[in-house]
């Protein structure tokens, strides 16, 4: 038993899960063109059982992406269009007085759209703070509590929210507590001319083709089980901890830029998110251990919505992504104190 615990996954144990995830990624790439890296990160987020905030202009395919994922993974998918007059009950559900028998009436809970596997919260920043706060428990506890009764959400449960970065009039910026609950904030970019050309020439009305392969629930459970066994070595976990600590201006390893631009650094939840998503990336890469490159790959999406910049950064037009990228370039992964004038060159 202990020997089993001490061994990392063998190639034979890992390969089926990796193949499944690569196949899912291949399906996504086939359905939605030109965004392989975004698809990889979304799948990594799902493998990590985290919620993802997609940020991008309208019409870039955010909804189509969520729909495609639901289709491939054979998960229930629901969409909520957030508006200022949306109420918490519209999301969570409510109790309705119903006639259950002759002369007998009873308050019956009518579940809201949140009771699903994949919830697309479209334009989440348009809802009022009251409605947004209704999402906090669902995202963190994966349950809904109404009138003293807590109801668990289906497993798995993911929130894939989207927000428009330009139409800020009539919007309510997400509070930091809610932002912190998102595993990733992914920026959905425009596609290239070649991809656009392919889209309009091969697809009528831009409709993506149906998935030619779908992952069964058993397969998905297998993938989750294997992902849970991906090992995070101590030097890598140490690097994650140092990285998150370095985002704080008072941190011992904080860079000059961090001290100058950052008001508040990332929370411990960010370290957990990096560790989990690095494991997912390692699984997708076919490795039983999370490495430094996995951490670097996920650190940007994990940290860029958790770092709060000060006014000086705004004046200098510095973005969180730039600050995180600079930190990743500066902080040595292995913790070996190599002086500035000493350089390691690959032989």
């Amino acid at each position: 038993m202990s020997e089993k615990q001490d061994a990392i996954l063998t190639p034979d144990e890992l390969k089926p899960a990796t193949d499944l995830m690569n196949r899912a990624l291949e399906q996504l790439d086939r359905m939605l063109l030109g965004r392989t890296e975004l698809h990889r990160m979304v799948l990594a987020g799902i493998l990590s059982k985290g919620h993802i905030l997609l940020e991008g202009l309208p019409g870039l395919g955010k909804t189509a992406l969520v729909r495609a994922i639901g289709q491939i993974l054979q998960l229930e998918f629901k969409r909520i269009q957030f508006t200022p007059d949306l109420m918490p009950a519209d999301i969570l559900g409510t109790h309705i007085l119903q006639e259950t028998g002759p002369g007998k009436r009873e308050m019956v809970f009518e579940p809201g759209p949140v009771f699903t596997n994949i919830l697309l919260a479209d334009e989440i920043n348009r809802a009022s703070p009251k409605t947004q706060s209704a999402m906090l428990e669902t995202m963190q506890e994966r349950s809904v509590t109404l009138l003293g009764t807590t109801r668990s959400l289906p497993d798995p449960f993911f929130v894939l929210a989207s927000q428009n970065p330009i139409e800020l009039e009539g919007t309510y910026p997400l509070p930091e507590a809610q932002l912190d609950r998102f595993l990733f904030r992914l920026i959905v970019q425009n596609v290239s001319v070649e991809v656009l050309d392919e889209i309009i020439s091969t697809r009528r009305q831009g409709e993506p083709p149906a998935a030619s392969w779908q992952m069964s629930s058993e397969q998905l459970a297998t993938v989750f089980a294997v992902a849970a066994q991906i090992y995070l070595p101590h030097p890598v976990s140490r690097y994650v901890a140092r990285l998150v600590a370095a985002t704080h201006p008072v941190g011992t390893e904080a860079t000059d830029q961090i001290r100058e631009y950052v008001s508040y650094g990332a929370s411990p939840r960010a370290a957990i998110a990096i560790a989990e998503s690095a494991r997912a990336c390692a699984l997708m890469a076919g490795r039983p251990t999370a490495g430094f490159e996995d951490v670097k790959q996920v650190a940007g999406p994990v940290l860029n919505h958790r770092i709060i910049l000060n006014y000086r950064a705004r004046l200098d037009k510095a973005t969180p992504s730039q600050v995180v990228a600079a930190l990743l370039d500066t902080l040595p992964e292995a913790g070996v104190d190599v002086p500035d004038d000493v350089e390691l060159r690959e032989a």
Partner: protein
Amino acid sequence: MGYAEGEQAATTLRRALGMVRLTRRFTMLATLYLFVYGVVVLLFRALTRCPRNLLAFGFLALFPVAAVALALERRKFPARTAVKALLDSMHRCGGLLVAGDERDAGAWDARLPEFRVPTVHWHARRHVLALTASAIFVVFAFSIPRRYTRPQSSYTLEVDHLVEELTEQVDLLEEEAVLEDTRARALRDELDRLAEEARGDDPARTLEALDHIQAVMNERASEAAEAALAQVEEMTKAQALADASATLAATGRDPALMAAAMKALAGLLKDQELERMLAGALPEGLLGAAQAGALTPEQLKALSELLKQCKGECRGCLGRLCKARLIDAKFLKLCKNAGRYDPDALAAFLADGQAGKELAVLLRACCGKGGVDRGRGDAPMTWTEGSSEQGAAFKEQVLPPGPVSGLNNTKLVGISAAVPKVSAGATPVRSGVLATGEGPGAAHTRTVLPRHRAAVRRYFERTDKEGTRSDE
């Protein structure tokens, strides 16, 4: 490939990193130390008279500096796990290499990449420049003249070379027993004190003191030189008497004269100074016999040789004093003549009594002064060292034929009172060495003045009483 290779690569990289870090740290500390050392050297040279070779021992402190660098870097020596993590990151192993330390990852051994140990490059230009600058600063601190290390208001008077010269003179005088040990030590201490207290703003005081010491030593050296000269003179006389006595003893012709010579020699050797000096050089029996006037011919010869050696020692002492410039030019000249036999002085010494006079005559006869312009012609010449012919050989040269051969075939034509007529175009005969110079045959051109003509005529017309006459 595999974990074993990764371990080996990590060990190699760790060692290389450690060495580079140690070298870097030592360079930094050595730079810092050398700058501080240079400042300390400057301060010491400005404030004390600590000699440079003593200050140079500070270079030995570079060894402790190296030890400090080692101690500092030992604490920061990269851990093996960290170096493996570095290798893992550089080779993009995805945590497999580092996981091998924590979990059983043998199944992935073949999946590990080939590990190449990265090279450690140290951009040392800045450090090396700083180290070089600090080393140059130390050299500068050592080589700058002392006068520049003192503040302008109280800089030291540069009297080191004077003090050094005087110290050498003191040592010489002590060595030649001119100065007593205690006196020499006192003089040396005084010289050190003067060098220590020599101040640029009051140079007269120091220089006067040094002049005084110089004068004292010159006086002592002059006294010693005079004494040595006198002893040399005495020994010269004694040697001459010993030689004469030996000659007389060998011939055995005049016992009275021999006795007088012995007596005179004994009188000379009884001189206290000479006796003191010879006491160490001569065997006790020989000196006693000499003072008693009872020396055998062999003892006389031995005495002569020993006196000659003692004279040499005295002259050597005088030479060293001259060389050290402790005695002046007058003594220098006397020193050159010291030990040369002076028969007049000896004759004056032996002048009292008939025997003394005869002995003086004998000595004059025995010993000449030598040379071509001194002494009598019948005096034996004293040959010392033969002249070297090296570089003095005459250059052989064939001279042109002289005019004599040309006159062999001449014939008297007549005697004229007037200047001989020389036909136009005739060239005077020139030959011999005159042909190369200005003289163009003087007989043809010399003009006989009218007042001399009668004398010339009479000469040619005279009848030689011995029967010879002019050709006419």
